[in-house]
């Protein structure tokens, strides 16, 4: 491991440290959980203390997508597009059981978990989760970010490695878990 590699890892760590305390959230608020999300943002629980400051209302300015509430099949495409519009590296948090698994809505209209449409980093249980749970989930995400284990961070790292290998004429097979998300429109 040469000096350069050490430098890059250090830089990466510093960058991650910066990222985890300056999360720009895009709340994809659909349902009941939105009420608790308000509480999280409101004075008492004050998510700002953790650097997830003020919600950006455009995915292009956000790097943390918080899926708040039930995702229906009808919303799927919108959710997908929003995810694709966000800037990298990006993270996704499923807020509440509906976003995680569909919760007790198991029927023709609701999607059994947002991860059916996009990758998710942290699942926060609860219907709706208490604000404390949400903050806990956020901290878990921050740790993940510091370790560079966000799904999108892995993707980027692998692509970098692949490029580097290509430059050195080595072969590098990208692990399947690190393939860039692909949309797969399936009807019926």
């Amino acid at each position, binding site marked *: 491991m040469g000096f350069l590699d050490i430098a890059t890892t250090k830089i990466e760590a510093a960058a991650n440290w910066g990222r985890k305390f300056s999360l720009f959230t895009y709340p994809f608020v659909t349902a*009941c959980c939105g009420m608790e999300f308000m509480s999280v943002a409101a004075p008492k629980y004050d998510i700002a203390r953790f650097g997830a400051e003020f919600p950006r209302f455009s995915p292009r300015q956000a790097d943390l997508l918080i899926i708040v509430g039930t995702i229906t099949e009808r919303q799927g495409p919108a959710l997908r597009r929003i995810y694709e519009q966000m800037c990298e590296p990006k993270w996704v948090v499923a807020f509440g059981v509906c976003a995680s698994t569909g919760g*007790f809505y198991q*029927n023709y209209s609701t999607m059994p978990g947002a991860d059916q449409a996009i990758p998710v980093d942290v699942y926060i249980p609860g219907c709706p989760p208490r604000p404390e749970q949400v903050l806990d989930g956020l901290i878990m995400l921050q740790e993940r970010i510091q370790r560079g284990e966000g799904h999108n961070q892995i993707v980027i790292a692998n692509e970098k490695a692949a490029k580097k290998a290509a430059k050195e004429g080595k072969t590098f097979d990208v692990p399947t878990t690190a393939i860039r998300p692909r949309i797969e429109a399936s009807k019926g």
Partner: protein
Amino acid sequence: MSADSHSSGLEPRRVVLGFQDAEDLGAPDLPTEPVPLNMGPSHPAMHGTVRMVLEVEGERISSADIQIGYLHRCFEKESENATWTQIFPYTDRLNYISPMLNNVGYAMAVEQLLGIAKSIPERAQFIRVIVGEVSRVSDHLTCLGASAMELGAFTVFLYALKAREWLFELLEEVCGARLTSTYCRIGGVAYDLPEGFGTKLRDIMGRIRGVLADIGKLLERNRIFRDRMDGIGIITKADALAYGITGPVGRSTGLAYDVRKDHPYLVYDRFDFDVPVGSVGDNFDRYAVRVEEMVQSMRILEQALDTIPAGPVMVADPRVALPAKTETYNSIEAMIAHFKIIMDGIHVPPGEVYSFTEAGNGELGFYIVSDGTGRPWKCRVRPPCFSATAVLGKVLPGLFIADVVPTFGMINMIGGECDR
């Protein structure tokens, strides 16, 4: 429309229509071509997912197609596959800002079918009124806070949510959950109010009055706020009738209809409270009506806390009420009763009923068809904000794009209730 003062006791105000402003400025009417503009389904100003396909000429909206259904969670299909008691959690999530009111409405409908509506213990009825009104206050607080934030008044949002937080914590003491309460049961309520509930609630109400005063100071003489509310998004009384709009939105149009007054249920006939009515039917009227309703709800709460009787909170019918846990674990009789009520469900005789209560957004109706089994054949919700959202398609044309935000905010469309 006239600019006379209305019941919320505010000074008369200048009613100006948006496009008159434009002409006042003497802006030359440049030729424009209609441009389709898509708002939502995920839009910062759309609390609750809705999609508006607007057609705009310049800044002016020429036609609006409101598309709902992004939060269709199949309340009815789920209900048809759940026992009567299992449906309560689903009702929580209809109008998720005031779950208690939905619980009450649903419980009353089923009790009507069971024919035990008259035999609900009085204390239970009082408790239902109390938790319901608390929910109503939190509902209106949220609506005001959110809409104000969308107009840029972030402080109001923070104030309102601070106040709502107090109520949530109070409700948590009552039912164990901040938001989704599932507190009512068929035949009463799950358990009695906690110790010192009254004093806590009185204290909180005092503080909320303070918060309301602050919000009033911040908004009611606020030029920006008034200009974006006054005379914007006017709904006429005729429309309110034709669309079946009730609740704050309906009352803002001068339609003096409040189920609590016109068809008193529970013990509402024992309380003395007024029904605020608007005169213009614009956004500011809706705002004013909501503020006044909170005041009135707190009046009701004061009286209810004064007069609430002691006693049981659940009917004595062993075929409806669950036996005590100790009984269940120690005697086969209670075990069987518990088992039957939980697994088989309460048996509701065949029949159909339409039962209606005053929820946060207006008349919340439950049209239930029972085929005599442990589960409903059909459990239909008549969502109050469905009608109010429907009228938007008629109200928005003629307004500016910027007017969509306050108008939609003041309609207070709640996805869970509107799309079910």
